[in-house]
């Protein structure tokens, strides 16, 4: 019987880099680095409704048509920022209470919230809409 020739057994590693590249490209393409962005707000805990002195509250009311009443003064949405800034200069403890109608569009609400935040307000309270 003829003995089989002894063959050197080696795993070919020359294409390893290619395979690794392929997998790398796959993960590069599937990774989504885009982070979600938005307006962050902390809701009050249940049963944590506190009474605040009247003079430290500023009421912002939004009706179903998207019109804004800022302390009984009608204000256009894009002006809220300035009004908030002025009011904060007079009283920096001011809390802005945002109240909407149940029929108000979410878009208007976010716009107003954005404006209030742009005005530098740190203390914003969300009041429940009237039923």
């Amino acid at each position, binding site marked *: 019987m003829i003995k089989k020739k002894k063959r050197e057994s080696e795993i070919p590693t020359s294409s*390893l*880099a290619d395979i*690794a*590249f392929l*997998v*790398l490209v796959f*993960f*590069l393409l*599937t*990774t*989504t680095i885009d*982070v*979600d*962005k*938005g*307006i*962050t*707000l*902390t*809701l*009050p*805990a*249940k049963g944590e409704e506190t009474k605040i002195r009247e003079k430290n509250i500023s009421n912002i009311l*939004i009706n179903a048509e998207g019109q804004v009443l800022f302390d009984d003064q009608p204000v256009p949405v894009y002006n809220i920022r300035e009004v908030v800034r002025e009011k904060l200069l007079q009283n920096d403890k001011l809390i802005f209470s945002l109240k*909407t*109608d*149940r*029929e*108000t*569009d*979410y*878009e208007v*609400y*976010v*716009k107003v*919230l*954005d404006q209030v*935040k*742009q005005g530098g307000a740190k203390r914003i309270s*969300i009041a*429940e*809409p009237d039923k």
Partner: protein
Amino acid sequence: MEFKKKAEAEATIPTSALPDIVFLLLIFFMVTTVFKEFTGLQVTLPEAKQITKLPGKRDVAYIWIDRTSNISIDDKIVDVPQIFEIMWAKRNNPVNPTRVTSLRVDRKVKMGLLSDVQEELRKADCLSVNYSAKPAS
């Protein structure tokens, strides 16, 4: 005066360490990849300027509300009273409890519905919410 010519050096880029570098990158991307678990609903987000980034996808719970008032959590359509139970379970998940709730709400949704949802979130102790918005141009 004559200058001695410099010996010509062979210029080759060493490629033997290339697979190692590639592997390192590969492992980085494998670890950072988070596959999409759910697709959500079709919503048009509102625009805002004062926006902040969310901390990361792992601790965030998403609630979708589209303009026909469908509410979706993890690709399941739910009713308002069910939100409390689901969010409470997520909040008290021992592995990765929800820290932030991202509300992806369509811009035409009425505030009455959103208020009801927020009321449920308050009950479930999910107090940190994020109104998802597009950066305004």
